[in-house]
Each structure stands twice: as C-alpha cells, then as structure tokens.
C-alpha cells in the first residue's frame, strides 16, 4: 500500500512539477499560435496566403525581408568573428572589459538605441558632420531612412547574438590543436583555414541561425531607421492590423514568416549536422 503510494508519488512528481510550465507555454504560446492559424484561414479560404504569395508587392516584401536578414547575418558574422576571437584569447581583465562593451548596449532598450542611431546617422548627425569637417565627403551621406540605416541599426542590436555562440565554441577548442598543426608544418594561415576555422563553424552556424531568425521578424529598427522607405514583413503585418484591420491577411503573413524561419532554421540545422559529425 505504502509502496504503491510512494511509487505513485514518484511518478506523479515530474507531472506535478511540469504542469505549471506546460500550462504557461500552452496558454501564452501554443494557444495564441493556434488562434493565429485559425484566423489566417478566416472563412475557410486560403485567400490570405494566395495574396501574400502571388501578389508581387507582398511577395517582394517577403523576399526583401529575407535578403535584409541575410545581409545583416553576414555583416554580423564578419564583425563578430574577430571580436569573439579576441575575447577568447584575451586576459581575464580584457575579456571582462570586452564583455562589458558588448553587454552594455545589449541591456539597453532597443528603442533607446535606435533613437541614438537616428541622432548619429542623420543628415546633420555626428557621423556626417565629422566626415564633412574632415573633408572626406562634400555631401552628407544618406545614412538614415534607407536600407543602410536599417542594416546598421540591426547589426548593432544583433551582434551579441552572433558573438556569444562563436565565443563559446572558441573557448572549447583544445589549444594543443593549433600547436599540433603548426608543429606538423602548417603556416599560421593554414592552421586557421584547415584547423581553427572549421572547428568554430558550429558556433558560427548557431549564431547565424539566431541572428537570421530574429532579423526576419525585426520591427522597431526598420520602422524607425527605415523611415517608411524600407518595408519588411514585420512592418507589413503591423500595417495590415493597424491601418486596414485585415486580421486574416496579417495572420497569414505571420504564418508565412514563421514557416520561413522554421524552414531556414532546419536547413541550417541539417548543414550543421552534416558538417560536425565529429562532435
């Protein structure tokens, strides 16, 4: 009897512990997602999806968003790799300072940072003024309210997401490996291309997926730094809801965005698995 209750208790414990989080996930994440899907099939037709995929205007926005996210991911990678490398090789003190510089903006509101970029990048912003005063340019560069501004702002926000996974992988690389490679006759460049870089790829993939997926759904930065001239799918959804009250179409766009994110994530995942069978 007591054995039975004890066993029941033992089996029930994870269930009891798991109930609350499960309930939370279901009511605040899965249920709304389900509602979104139902809304997107409003009236039992697929017109929302049809419109999004066939109307060249909307399909173009979708493509533009993917392209923007790819550009941001690529720039983040190029910037983050050396940063992660320096951090993983820095002394304790310098690593702490580097992380401070990286995390401080990370903890600041995206809104604040985006407005800060507006001040920096405007026609009479600090960047243009400095370049003009130094005589590098004669006309202010168009940095704000176009794709350049959006890319700059997004890269700034998303950089830490790329740095951390790469840094984590770099830390785990056995320091004997580059030494062994150079001892076996590899030049520093080849140690990097043949040994070090391939070993850091899993981190790069992880960072790329993170940045890309987040960039796909970015809203505030394109809205403010794009100045209405850069349309992303996030902006499009907001527009459909607020201006046209077309909930089914907005829901269909959201579902497509989600599908695109999942698709690309799984593609990355497959590439990652293929490339790091050694892990």
């Amino acid at each position, binding site marked *: 009897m007591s054995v039975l209750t004890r066993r029941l208790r033992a089996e029930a414990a994870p269930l009891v512990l798991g109930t609350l989080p499960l309930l939370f996930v279901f009511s605040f994440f899965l249920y709304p997602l389900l509602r979104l899907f139902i809304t997107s099939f409003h009236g039992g037709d697929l017109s929302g999806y049809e419109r999004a995929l066939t109307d060249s205007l909307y399909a173009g926005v979708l493509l533009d968003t993917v392209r923007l996210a790819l550009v941001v991911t690529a720039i983040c990678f190029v910037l983050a790799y050396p940063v992660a490398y320096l951090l993983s090789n820095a002394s304790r003190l310098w690593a702490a300072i580097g992380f401070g510089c990286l995390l401080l903006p990370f903890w600041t509101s995206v809104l604040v940072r985006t407005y800060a970029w507006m001040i920096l990048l405007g026609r009479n912003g600090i960047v243009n003024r400095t370049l003009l005063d130094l005589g590098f340019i004669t006309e202010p560069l168009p940095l704000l309210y176009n794709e350049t501004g959006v890319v700059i702002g997004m890269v700034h926000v998303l950089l830490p997401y790329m740095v951390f996974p790469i840094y984590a992988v770099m830390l785990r690389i*056995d320091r*004997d*490996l580059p*030494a*062994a*490679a*150079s*001892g*076996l*006759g*590899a*030049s520093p460049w*080849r140690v990097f291309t*043949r*040994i070090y870089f*391939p*070993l850091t790829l899993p981190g790069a993939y992880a960072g790329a997926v993170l940045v890309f997926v987040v960039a796909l759904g970015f809203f505030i930065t394109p809205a403010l730094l794009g100045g209405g001239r850069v349309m992303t799918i996030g902006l499009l959804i907001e527009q459909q809801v607020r201006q046209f009250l077309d909930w089914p179409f907005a829901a269909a766009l959201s579902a497509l965005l989600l599908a695109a994110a999942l698709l690309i994530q799984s593609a990355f995942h497959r590439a990652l698995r293929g490339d*790091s*069978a*050694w*892990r």
Partner: protein
Amino acid sequence: MGRQRRRDGRTLGQVGDREVAPAASGPAGAAGPRPAAEAPAPHLALAGIERRFGAVAALAGVDLAARPGEFLTLLGPSGSGKTTLLKVVAGFEPPDRGRIALAGRDITALAPAKRDIGMVFQHYALFPHMSAAANIGFPLAMRGQSRTAMREKVAAALALVGLSGYDDRLPRQLSGGQQQRVALARALVFGPALLLLDEPLGALDRKLRGQMQSEIKSLQRRLGITTLFVTHDQEEALALSDRIAVMNEGRIAQIGTPEDLYRRPATRFVAEFIGEANIFRGRAGVVSGDKVEVRLESGAAMRASLAPGDRTVHYGADLALVVRPERPRRLAPGETAENGVSGIVAEATYLGETIRYRVTLDGGSDFFLRWPADGATLAPGMRVTLGWGVVDMNAVLWG
C-alpha cells in the same frame, strides 16, 4: 629547394633502409666533419636553455645532447620543467636564453612548422573534424605532396601502427589506444628528424600502457628515430629509455642509463625519485679514493662508495647514504658485514615476484627491504640484523 627534396625523401617509405643503417639519418651524416670526439656528434643539442615565467625559472640553464637514434627520456615531478623543455624544443615556447641545434642546424629561432619535428601530445591533439587518414596525411599535405604519394604513405603509416582499414574513422570513433597510434603515425609519417612524446601513455589504462610501451620502443628502434620522451612515471622511463635525464627545479639533476641512475644516483633527489631508497644522513669522515667513512647522526659508522671521480665530498661534508631495498641480506648471529643495522620486522607485503618488508630500526626509523618471494622470508615481529657492503651503498651530498 634541395633541402625540401631531401626532407621529402626521408619518409616512411624508407623504413627498410633505416633498419639497415639506423644511425645514418641524412642530415646528421651531412653535418660535416667534427672535431675528434669519442661519442658520435649529438643529433639534438641544447645549450644553456633558460625560460622564466614571471619570477619562476621553469628552466634554469639546461644542457642536453641526444645521440642519433637515441631514446632519451626527460623524467621529473610535475613542475620540474620537463614539459617546458619539450615545448622549447618543439618551438611552442621561446627560450629566454640558450641555443637548440637539430641535425647540425640551429633551430632556435625557427617557427615550429619549419623544425621538422614530429610530436605526440599528451591528449594526442588529433584534429576532431578529420578522419584518421586525413590526420595522418596532414603533415604531408602541408609539405605539398601529391595525392598519390600521400595515399601510399598514409597507408604505410597506418599499417606501421597496426591500424590498416581505419582510414575513415573519426578520432571520436577510435579507442584511446587507437587514437594514440594515429597520433604516433601522424608524428612519424613525414620522416621527421626528431620525435617528441609528451606523456603519451598517461591517459591509457595500465595494461594498454604496457603494450603501447613495447610498441613505441620497437617502432623507435626500427625507424632509428631520435626520440625525446617526457614522463613523470619512473617505471615507464626505466623500461623505455636508452638514457634518462632526471629533471628537478628547472635543471637536469643527472643524466645516464637507467642502470646508472638506479645504482649510482648522483644526488639525493635522484636517489629518492628513481626506485625506492633507504637514506641515512651523516658527516663524512675519512675520504679515501672512491670510498668514504661516514659518522651517522645516531653515532654509528658506515662505509659507502662515492661516484667515480666525485671531488665534491670532503671531510665533514653533509652526506646522504643510499642503499636500495634489495641490497641488504640477513646476517646470521656472529656474522658481520661492512655496514649493518638491526631492528624488528614491522610489516610484510606480498608483491608477486618480491616481498616488501618494513623494518623498524632500533633508532625508531623505518627501513625497507625488497626480497625475492621465493627466497628466505621474514615474519612480522622477528628481530633481524641486516648487512651490506660498501659497493651496495652510495654517498652523495645531502643538499
């Protein structure tokens, strides 16, 4: 260019030639005439190597010479500088002072990639994203060898370490012993002038370690490759080495054959570090030739041998007297010996071939014996008198 070609020629394809003439590895023979000397020209020569880390001298002036084809071991406790010395030779750690010459050329300032040295790391350092064959082929690829040449040499190297057919395995799909063999093959495949082994057996279990020991030894003999081996395991050092350099506090305490070190330790550190030793302390009395009479702290007198040519011991010197546990024999009543102690057997430990006894001497200190298990045996509680000769006991300076 000429150097490149010559180096490429000396690869595993020539294992057979080496067997015939192990000592005549190319560059050593090409080193040119040397001043007349009884020993062959050293293949690896270290002179005055110093290396500091902050205030700590990891290497405090090391001179070392390895003969062609020699298996030389650096033995010492952790922190003695042996691994630092290996890194200096490999080129991963620049020496603050001193010169390194390999096969007649000064390599002190050369990058590791240009040193022509094969190294097996403590944890093998196999490239985890490359197959066994790709790992072994790596040094060949770095030397720009053709695919066909690489394929042949990699196959030969895999066969050499008994891993034919494992070409496509990734390191994580190999056992510890197999990883070790791949690492060894990778270090040998390009026919380096020197092989460095950094405690390569430490990660293996005991049985496998014994097996790898004899394989490494026979491989090294067959290839005739000069080898520098680092270990803190004295048994391993005794089993493998032609000569052992015992390191302590950044210096070489003594260098010699395993037998030299065991039978004629030059310092108290070496005596204690290699094998088991019973040590007495006393002051030198009469020094005569290579014998010395010593007055112990207890007041007893003993006689011991000095190392041949030892001029450091003089009257009144503070000495350590070393007697190995297998040297003393039991004295019958009335029988005398040049040196003797008596005490009560405290403990007997059966070790298979031998039995180890702990004897509490009359002065209260412990004395250890190790006798063949099939000979005369003692039982705990017995009172024994033990004796040994002058040749069985070595005197070295205490400090």
